[in-house]
């Protein structure tokens, strides 16, 4: 028996929701970052599932570009977090209120 597409999409939905909740609940910016990666991966899984359903390589090509952008995003994001930690010696998103009311 092959696995129905809906199972993959359901798993993707579950992982995406967990990632979003992680972004909101956690206070450590590193964990928030990792939760974003989790949500990105869930979206990638849905894209690959749709690509397999349609028999076209477009879904996989999109995931390829998402991976490249995620790699760039993680590099710059972690560098920003390191710079923030250097200047403040604390690591909690609640401290970073300079640009919000």
């Amino acid at each position, binding site marked *: 028996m092959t696995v129905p597409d809906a199972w993959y999409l359901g798993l993707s939905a579950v992982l995406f929701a967990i990632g979003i909740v992680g972004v909101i*609940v956690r206070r450590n910016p590193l964990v928030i970052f990792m939760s974003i990666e*989790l949500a990105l991966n869930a979206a990638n899984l849905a894209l690959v599932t749709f690509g397999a359903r349609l028999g076209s390589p477009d879904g996989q*090509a999109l995931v390829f570009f998402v991976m490249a952008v995620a790699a760039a995003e993680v590099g710059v994001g972690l560098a920003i977090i390191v710079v923030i930690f250097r200047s403040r010696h604390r690591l909690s998103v609640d401290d970073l209120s300079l640009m919000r009311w």
Partner: protein
Amino acid sequence: MARAAFVLVALLAVGAALGLVIKKNVIHGAMFLVVNMASIAALYYMLGAEFLAVAQIVVYAGAIMVLFIFAIMFLIPGKDETGPDPRRWQRALALPLGALLLILLLAVVAAVRGTGPPAAGPATSGALYRALLTDYLLPFELTSILLLAAIVGVMVLAKRRPG
């Protein structure tokens, strides 16, 4: 057989994702994320996307997670997420809202189930390579510029001294 394998890998992925969000220790969270990435790579393989399965392991479980671990080690966490939570009620709101999001997403999945064209089967890796170097040639080249810009940006940020 395939369904049993899917359920096994899916449980692993969801368990690892929950571990990342629930565990207080950041290193443990990173390890959970590695497990999650590896199980998603297995799912890519089951969907016939061999190239992406390998790329997932190399790029995510390899490169990106090494970067995360490096940052965690560099920043020496442990003092974070202690003390009173200044935004407690907002975080308490996150769980029901997350459950609502999940219900909505699953409703969408249930609504589209069984509709659309019949399953065509996965595209071969050869088709993916051809698409990347023909239809997606411009974005493919722009990706290299993006990565170069990211490298330069990281070096500028890392060189700056505080104060």
